[in-house]
Every structure is written in C-alpha cells, then in structure tokens.
C-alpha cells in the first residue's frame, strides 16, 4: 500500500488541512437561523440592560416619590404643570409659610411666600422644597422691606417615569430592570447548580451502571414524587429568607431532569464503539469520561441548559408570586406581576410591562434553545 488516500475533496496536500469540527458546523447552522440569532441579540441586550440599567437610571429601585404614586407611563417629564402648585403648597405648609403667588415658567418657579408667624423668614425653609423631589437649586430672597416675605426661586427638576410608577411611587422601569437582573441571576445560578448536580449524578449513575445505577435512579424517582414547594419552604424556613437560598432551592429541584437526561446519554455513549475502543486501548475510566463521555454530552447539556433557564426563571417568579421569593424592597418579575395583577383594574400597565418583559425574555431563551438543538442535532430539522 503506497498510494495515499486523500480526503473527499481531493485537494492536493499542502501543509496541514484545518478540520471543521462539529461545533463549527453547529455554529454555522445557528447563524443561519434568524429567530435564534434575533433571540440571542435580545438576550444580550436584556442582560446588558439588567447589568447597566439600574446604575444608569436616574431613579433608584427603592426610591419612593410620595408625590407620584401610581403615575401612568409617559414620555413627558413630571411634574406636570398642574401638579406643581399643590406640591409646592404642601411643602410650604410644612415649612409653616404661606404662598401668596406662584409664577411657573418652563423650568423655573418663582414663589412669593409669607411667614405665618410675625417673624422674618428662616432661610432654611428652602430645605422643605428640596425634599419635595421636584425642585433643585432652590434659593430664597428675603425682601429687605419686609423680612416676613420673600421670593423663592427654584428650578424644576424634570423626572421621567417611562413606564409609570407603582403604588408606592417607585419608578417601574427601574424596578423592572432590577428584577430582570434578579431573574437572570437566578436563571444563571440555579441552572448552574442544577447543572453541576445533575451532570455529575447522571454521568456517575450511567457510567457505573448496574445496581448502583438502579439505586441512584430509584432515589431520583422518589424525589420526583415529592411536592417541591414543600422543599423550598423547608429550605426557606431553615436558613431564613435569602436570595441565594432561592437559587439553591430551585437548582436542587431542577437537577432531576438533567440527571435523567445525562444518565440516558451516558448509557448510550457507553455502548458506542468509540468508548469500547478506548477501553480496548487500556485508557482508564477517568480519561474515558474526560475525553469521550463529557465532550459528547456537552451538546445535550447546552441545549437542555438553554431550555432550563426559562423554567428556572418561571419557578423563581412563581415563588415570588406566592411571597416566598425575594423580599421587599428588592423585587423580581414574579413580585411585580403579582403586584400588577392586584392593581390591574385601574393601572393595567403595572401588569402589562413586567409581564411583557418576562414574555420577551422567555420567548428569546426558548427560541435560542430550539435553535441550538436544531443546530447540534441536524436530523431533527
């Protein structure tokens, strides 16, 4: 045998040919799937928004604007013209001064005030106006002729609530961004927990096989027949209400499916001739798992992971909906939706915006998962 067999494209051999791995092929296929690519960008966008958003936002997620409770979503700035006078009056009455006249221009107000007591005005009354959320650069000019009177000049601080405010007067957009952060964090961390436990458990069970496999799978069956809510409650009871606990609790529930899938795959792989070939070569079990089992499991695991993340997010929001999840003032999509449902009759936007955010996120994750599955498993197209 001296002839040299070339690869099928029959190119002459010039140096080393670069191979195209299954992963390269899969990525190429994924790039052609428009729904999956759009979803990928949506997810990237939402992740960035969740990370940067709350820091960039002019509001803090727990900042309460007493004057703007349950404001409707609007692109325009608050306070509206007609809101300024009442807010000012309230602030001034706390300062125990009366308003004689108010002159509102586009971004500035001039207020003539008079002290209720027969005393000169205290310059510190400006603080009361500062506290009213809507003013900045407040200055008081006391009339020299009559120190009991003065003119307050203040710039109006424009506040924008693009998605309105909730029943406590907090900016909904900021709260959604924060809850998106929580949801994604839960999604990533809980999936990670489920992944580690599930893959290890499943791979060991499948690879060792025999009676141990039997026993391990019986245990999984047993856990399947337990109501998980009970477990989460127990965990919450044990360790108090902690957000990391939710990650772990959710992860602990979701590993079961992963373990089953990985075990099935491992059993199948063990029957593959390339694994038997390695055994025949005398490769030890650790290396067989490392070189042959795990790389071939990777595809399945990645696909399952993208489908697990939305489920985990749903679970967390479900727990939060029941009041078992994250606690005030921190929030999550489930909490926001639960609140929204309560006030939907008058303020439907409180329900619509969080629900929409959740749907878009989960939609994108699902489409990406489907796309990945198709890309990695072309026979399923």
């Amino acid at each position, binding site marked *: *045998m001296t*002839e*040299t*067999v*070339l*690869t*099928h494209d029959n190119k002459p*051999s*010039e*140096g*080393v*040919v*670069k*191979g*195209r*791995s*299954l*992963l390269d092929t899969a990525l190429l*296929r994924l790039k*052609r799937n428009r729904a999956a690519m759009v979803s990928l960008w949506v997810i990237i966008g939402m992740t960035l928004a969740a990370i940067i958003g709350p820091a960039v936002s002019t509001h803090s997620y727990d900042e309460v604007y007493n004057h703007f409770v349950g404001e409707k979503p609007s692109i325009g700035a608050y306070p509206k013209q007609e809101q300024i006078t009442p807010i000012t009056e309230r602030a001034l009455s706390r300062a125990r001064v009366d308003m004689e006249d108010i002159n509102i221009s586009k971004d500035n107000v001039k207020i003539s005030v008079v002290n209720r007591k027969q005393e000169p005005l205290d310059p510190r009354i400006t603080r009361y106006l500062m506290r009213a959320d809507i003013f900045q650069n407040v200055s008081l000019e006391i009339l020299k002729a009559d120190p009991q009177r003065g003119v307050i000049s203040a710039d109006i601080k424009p506040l924008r609530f693009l998605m309105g405010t909730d029943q406590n007067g907090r900016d909904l957009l900021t709260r959604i961004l924060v809850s998106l952060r929580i949801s994604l964090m839960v999604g990533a961390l809980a999936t990670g927990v489920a992944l580690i436990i599930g893959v290890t458990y499943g791979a060991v069970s499948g690879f060792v096989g025999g009676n141990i496999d039997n026993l391990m799978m019986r245990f999984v069956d047993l856990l399947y027949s337990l109501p998980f809510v009970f477990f989460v409650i127990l965990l919450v009871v044990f360790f108090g209400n902690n957000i990391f606990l939710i990650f772990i609790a959710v992860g602990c529930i979701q590993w079961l499916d992963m373990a089953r899938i990985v075990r099935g795959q491992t059993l199948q792989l063990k029957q*593959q*001739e*390339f694994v*038997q*070939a*390695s*055994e*025949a*070569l*005398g*490769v*030890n079990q650790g*290396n067989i798992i490392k*070189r*042959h089992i795990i*790389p*071939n499991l*990777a595809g399945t695991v990645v696909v399952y992971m993208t489908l697990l993340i939305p489920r985990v997010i749903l679970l967390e929001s479900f727990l939060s909906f029941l009041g078992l999840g994250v606690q005030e003032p921190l929030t999550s999509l489930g909490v926001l939706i639960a609140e929204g449902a309560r006030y939907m009759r008058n303020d439907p936007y409180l329900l619509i915006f969080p629900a929409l955010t959740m749907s878009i996120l989960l939609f994108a994750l699902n489409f990406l998962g489907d796309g990945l599955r198709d890309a990695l498993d*072309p026979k399923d*197209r």
Partner: protein
Amino acid sequence: MNTQTSVLNIQDLVVDFDTPDGVVHAVKGVSMAIAPGEIVAIVGESGSGKSQIAMSVLGILASNGKASGKILFNDQDILHLPRKELNSIRGSKISIIFQEPMTSLDPLYRVGEQIMEPLRAHKGLSRSEAKKRALELMRQVQIPDPERRFKSFPNEMSGGQRQRIMIALALANEPDILIADEPTTALDVTTQAEILKLLAELNKQLGMSIVFITHDLGIVEAFAERVYVMQSGEVKEFGSTNAIFKTPKTEYTKTLLDAEPEGAKEPVKKTQDIVLETEKMDVVYGHAPRFLQKDTRFHAVKDTSLRLHKGQTIGLVGESGSGKSTLGRALLRLTESTGKIVYLGNNIDKVPLKSLKPLREELQMVFQDPYGSLSPRMTVLNIVEEGLQTHKPQLSKVERQKLSLSTLEKVGLDPSVRNRFPHEFSGGQRQRIAIARAMVLQPKVVVLDEPTSALDRTVQKEVLELLRSLQSEFSLSYIFISHDLAVIKVMADYVMVMKNGKIIEEGVTQEIFERPRQNYTKSLITSSFNLKELLSEV
C-alpha cells in the same frame, strides 16, 4: 427501448436534495426501461443514487427531495400525479420492499393487520375477506403456522420472517412491478438465499417484473436478467447480465467486478509460537432467577477453545447472534468470561482488570462500524495518539505526533489530514483511522470484528490489502470475525464456524471450504458461493 414493450419507463430522471450544506444532486438524468415479467438489477455502491430512483417511482422521496423528468407506468406519467391518483397505483400496481424489515413495518401493529391494510385500501375487501387473503399470502411466502403468526408483532419475528411479511404485503394486490431495495442486505447469508429463492419463485408464478436494487454483484449474477450499473447518480452501463459480467465495457464496471476479495493465506507452521490461547471459555449474560425476576441468563459462548499462532489469521465465521463478537471481546477480556486465557504463556484470565493495562498495548481490536468507532469530537491525530498517551507517557508531544503521523501514512492516509474530524471522511478512510489507532501501539494480536462489513466492495478490497500488508510487515496475529465467507476465505488460514455460541467445525481454510463436514457449514458455503445453482433450481 420501445415504450410499448416496457411496463415502467424512466426518462431523464433527476433527483436533487436541498440540504443545509447546499443542493445535492443524487440522480443526474437517468433513463431505464423495465419489460413485463423481467428481473432487472440496479447495481451500484453506496451513494450512487440507486435507491432514490425507487423512492421517486413511488413518490416517497424525503421531504427535501425534488424529482423531475418522466416516470411512465404503462405510458402514464406517474411522477407528477396528484397524491390521490398515485395512491391508486402504489401498493396496488407497483409495490416495494425495503432493506430494513424491522423498521419498515409498524412496530405497534400486528403483522396480519398490516398485510390487510393495502388489501382493504385498494380492493375494498371486508375484514374477513382481507384476513382470508392475508393468511393465503402468508402461506405463499412460506411463513410457518400463519394463523398464529398473523397475531404476532414485528419485534417477535426474526429478520427473515419479517422480510417475508414485507413480501406478502408487497404481493397483496398482485402488482405488475415489485421494487426490492436491498432486501437481503440486513439478513444472514442462508436467509438471503431463501428470500432470493422465494422472490424467483414468485416471479415465475405471478409474472411480475422485479427491480432489484443491490450493491452485491454475486446476487446480480445469480438473480437478474438485465443490469443497470450506476455510479454517482448516473447509469454507467446497462445490458444483459451475461454481457455485463463477461464483457464489461466501462472502467467502472470492471473495477466493480474486480472488487471481489481475492488471494489466499498460507497456513502457518505448527511450530510457530502460540501467542493467544483459550480453553473451555464460557460467556454468560444476565442473571439467575431472583425474587420476582425471571431467569435472564443467556449463554453467548459455550465451552470454546482456541489457539492462535504467531502470524496466523483465525477466521471466526457465523451468522448474527452466533456469539462470534462476544468471543472476540472475551479473548481480550473486554467481556467477563470463565475459562483459561493464556497470552504468551501467561495466564491472564485471573489478572484483575486494573492490572491488564500493559496487555492492552499488545492486544488490540478494530470494530465494524467506522462511523461509531471514532469519537466524533476528536481530531484524527487525537484519536490515533490516545493509545500512546496511555501506554507511552514518557514520549514527548513531538515524538508522539511523529509516531502517530507515520502510522497514519502507513495505513494510507495523508498526514496533512491530522486536524480533521471523523465525519469529514468516507467509510473506508475512517476504517483506516481505526486501524491506525490500533497499529500505533505495535500490537501482537488484533481482533478484527467485521472490519470491512460496512464498506463498499471496492473499498473493502483496499482495506483487506492494507490488513494483509500490515500483518506480514509486523508478523501480526489476527482473529478475523466476519459473517462474509468470501472475506474469510481469502484472509484466514484457519477457520472456525460458530453457531449458537458453539464452535461446530474448525480446520485449515482450504479444508473447510472444499470439504465441509457439517450441514450448517455446507449451507453457509452454498448460500455464499453457489447462489446461481441454488436459484437455477427454481
């Protein structure tokens, strides 16, 4: 050919598949004509497009396939018929049997029920009429005890019986044309002979045309009156079987005809060292009856003794399920067994599995499936050097690569392909990689488990050549496991015939093939080499 005299006339058929990686042209303008009552073979290697012609005729191309051209059945173009009209022809006037009788029948319904379906759909028979006819058909295809078998599910039958059921299904409405797409490829040789005989008989009795699609020239020669030779979607040559076999006109046909395995191996001298020896080996799967569990014991290998000399090739031959692969694996202690195994004078049957590592270097195995035996996520180089990493950790990375690449060259692969992945190679090339993986460790004994069974004949010939040259270069000893007697005959110098886990006959190759003693061996040999005589009895 005149359209008047042909029942099926295919004109300029083109079949394209739209795949994610571009359009694949499977059939590129094929024309053929089938006369009433004749047996025509379409022969070609895998990927030649021969099956797609059958699929186009019956309108069952995969959903991404598109056929154009003309397919005239009794002068009616059936390629572009609407489904309803096509349904009145397929299964009634034209029917088909497939390669995989297991998956081609619905596993969830009883076989009797499935035979009744085309009867009821096309002839509008009542249930009882259809059942009567179905039983009649089952008798016709020689199913024993048809009343009982009528109620069986496909998985309760053997491969041969399932194929008979498929044939009964195909004959149900007495078609004018029966297309047989590799109908015997998945069957054992003796079963293959029986099925071919049945088809020949039915052709005589019923006078239908048979289009026989196959890669096996032996069958073509014995069975068909005319042949179309196909290669990469085109008909290369056609004519009467005699003419094609005696005076092939094209190079391709010549290569195909030359691809029959040839040569012979001289027996080794008795004085040669014994490398591997086993005595009274038994392999039992499953467990004894336990609480609430049935006896699942299955005796895969029974009381087997074997002696392999240096440079020898023992051919282990038998039909599927005879235990030959299990024996091969047990010899290397890849499967638990009882009985003595001696390697180079040392007892290795009691050595704990963990201490076997040094032996693994010298005892190697090559598997049948060139698609399954290479890890899909490793490069060729990684696959070949895995054994070196395990057994020669003292080698530097560069040394290891050098050794691996020279082995790749030795098995006939360009070392420049080292970074490619298995799926980028053809079947024969993959098998070369698998051989390189075994050879890089310079083993003394190699168990070859059906190493060429999944390959086309022309490729098989090259791989057999390669195995031969490696054997003489390194004085290797082979255990060559195969169901294919033609391969065993040319590769082995000593043959052992296995049936139901037992060696029923053994001896020097020439002896066994010329003077078989056991009836089973005789029938194996007749079915493999004397198909023509067997079928001429019809």
